[in-house]
């Protein structure tokens, strides 16, 4: 059962007001403890509402299960009524909170929609995903799904392409450090005393707004086109005879990294710029008074002060990087020979080209566990790092 306790200054203040009110009139007084003074009838109404809604939800689920397993003939074609029943149940839950717990219930109402939504959209599909991961489900085979235990898992361990995709993710994540350096440089430039600062800020921000798919077509496939693309022409002028950006594994990886960096550098740049602008002028002034050069000021004052913001920016960027997929899917489909595959794009093709739902889900779930462990570790290390330096 839920129990919400309120410890808040708002509450305290209000209770003072209440006790005054209670002394003057008892009939219309605000109750000191709302739960005690709610009429029994109202509580009973709340409970029965919740009971009816829960029973209805359960009944619909049971009817559907019986119908779908062909044990009964009554039921709906799709599971959609279950969603409606869940929404109604959520509404009943909210009403129950308000009816039985008064003001505390009204407070719970703030949180309930988001909580019910997220639980329904994440917990259930993830659990379902773990189940699919243990089946040999292939959409193109007629057999349907069969539970096959850990077979997918063993297959995954032996899959060189998956290992390769994971290795690529390591490289892509490391590329974030280069992006960070560039973003920091740009933030410093924007923070310098320049005219037309707003113009440059807007221009630098633009790539973030552009759809990665449109970017990978117009930049990756057209601008960097081998024969006529201006980027290739420029590369030829600079002395690279054979500017094929996507044909050998290493160049292809670097090209993908560059494209992804291009769209996401503004994100880090803006965070770092905000950090720079929040820094107190006095500290920098003091460093200059002490005779520090610009270089010393940066390394010994600006950079350490910027560490917390930097760490936030880099971690957020890494989290986004771990989802990298659209550019690779549209631009190289993982090629040449899987060299540019990210885990997401690899799984995408596992489903799209081979309809391997069971195996693909196992790969996705393994990836989820890996990145949860990785991000947790990263957050720990980062918080310790920031604490040690400051």
């Amino acid at each position: 059962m839920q129990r919400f306790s309120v410890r808040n200054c708002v509450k305290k203040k209000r209770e003072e007001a209440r006790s005054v009110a209670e002394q003057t009139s008892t009939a219309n007084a605000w109750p000191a403890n709302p739960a005690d003074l709610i009429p029994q009838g109202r509580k009973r109404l709340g409970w029965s509402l919740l009971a009816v809604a829960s029973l209805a939800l359960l009944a619909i689920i049971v009817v559907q299960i019986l119908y779908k397993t062909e044990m009964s003939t009554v039921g709906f074609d799709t599971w959609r009524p279950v969603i409606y029943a869940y929404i109604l149940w959520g509404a009943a839950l909210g009403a129950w909170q308000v009816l039985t717990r008064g003001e505390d219930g009204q407070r719970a109402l703030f949180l309930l929609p988001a909580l019910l939504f997220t639980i329904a959209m994440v917990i259930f599909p993830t659990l379902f995903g773990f189940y699919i991961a243990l089946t040999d489900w292939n959409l193109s085979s007629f057999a349907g799904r069969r539970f096959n235990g850990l077979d997918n898992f063993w297959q995954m361990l032996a899959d060189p392409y998956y290992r390769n995709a994971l290795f690529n993710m390591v490289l892509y994540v490391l590329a974030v450090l280069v992006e960070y350096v560039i973003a920091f440089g740009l933030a410093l430039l924007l923070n310098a005393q320049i005219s037309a600062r707003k113009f440059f800020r807007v221009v630098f921000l633009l790539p973030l707004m552009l759809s990665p798919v449109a970017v990978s077509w117009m930049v990756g496939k057209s601008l960097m086109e081998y024969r006529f693309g201006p980027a290739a022409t420029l590369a030829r002028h600079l002395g690279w005879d054979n500017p094929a950006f996507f044909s050998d594994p290493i160049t292809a990886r670097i090209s993908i990294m560059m494209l992804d960096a291009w769209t996401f550098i503004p994100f880090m740049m803006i965070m770092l710029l905000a950090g720079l602008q929040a820094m107190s002028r006095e500290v920098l002034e003091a460093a200059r008074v002490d005779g520090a050069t610009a270089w010393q000021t940066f390394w010994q004052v600006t950079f350490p002060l910027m560490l917390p913001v930097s760490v936030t920016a880099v971690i957020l960027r890494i989290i986004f990087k771990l989802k990298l997929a659209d550019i690779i899917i549209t631009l190289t489909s993982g090629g040449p020979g899987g060299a540019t595959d990210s885990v997401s794009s690899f799984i995408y093709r596992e489903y799209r080209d081979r309809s391997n739902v069971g195996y693909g889900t196992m790969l996705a779930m393994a990836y989820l566990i890996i990145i949860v462990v990785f991000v947790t570790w990263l957050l720990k290390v980062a918080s310790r790092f920031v604490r040690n330096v400051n």
Partner: protein
Amino acid sequence: MSVQTTDYTVSEIRSPAAFITSRVFIYGALVFWAFVCLFPIYWTITTSFKSAVDVTQGHLIPFVDFTPDWKGWRSLGLSPDSIFQTSTVRDEFLKRFMNSVITSVGASALAIIIGSLAAYGLVRYRYKFAWFRNEDISFFFLSQLILPPVVLALPFLVLYREVALLDTRIGLVLLYTLMVLPIVIWIMRDQFNSIPVELEEAALVDGLSIWGAFFRIVMPIALPGMVAAFILAMVLCWNEYFFAALLTSTDAKTIPVMVASQTGSQGINWWSMAALATAAIAPLAIIGIALERYLIMGMTAGSVK
């Protein structure tokens, strides 16, 4: 170090030559990066006015290198001479465009509504849900950010088929809401934290209910933050490709999916591709330029204290 008398013009003590060098360097770097940011956009827009020869010869400057032509836009049915004629491509494009608008606006709005409520509750009240307290609930919401789309995609593919939400806009709206909800909660928590609690106290003493205080006092103050969160959510939803590519086929296809599926049998028609890409990026580019302040506000929420 010798004792000097210093004043606030230390930076100008440096030699004029060094000052000019640093200016040249700063502006050089700024212009260079502005070029890096703008050239691809320039290339996209100009390519939509090129004919096949101009594309393959890499012509760059309109009126000098090549004569602009409405070719790309005509193929979309959006050029001046074809806009009043019937065009199946245009109908298709407008349908995709509307799908994108509806899904991204719908998802952002839904996320703002439930996300703001949750953020407000988490900032102002103490909850205890079984053994979960406020910090745990916040962490639960924010941790959704690391969930990669690929983990949810395949289960949702199966579940959506069961509930008949596959290839519907509602289905996409729900998923996009889930995708942007952590970001909205992150931004709005920061917003509500910056509102002094005394305002609500006063409202409550004056007899407003909790929800009345929220809607009449807190909401108007937090509106800029909501706009910021809304725009950031819009950007993410509008550009989303992964879910849209997997979960839609005919009815609910969005613009990025349409862009990605533009390979014809005789290779790619760059002019029409460029026109389509321009149309796909234009709305957000305009929003980004016009509402840049809010966008920056959203991105920097919570990172600087």
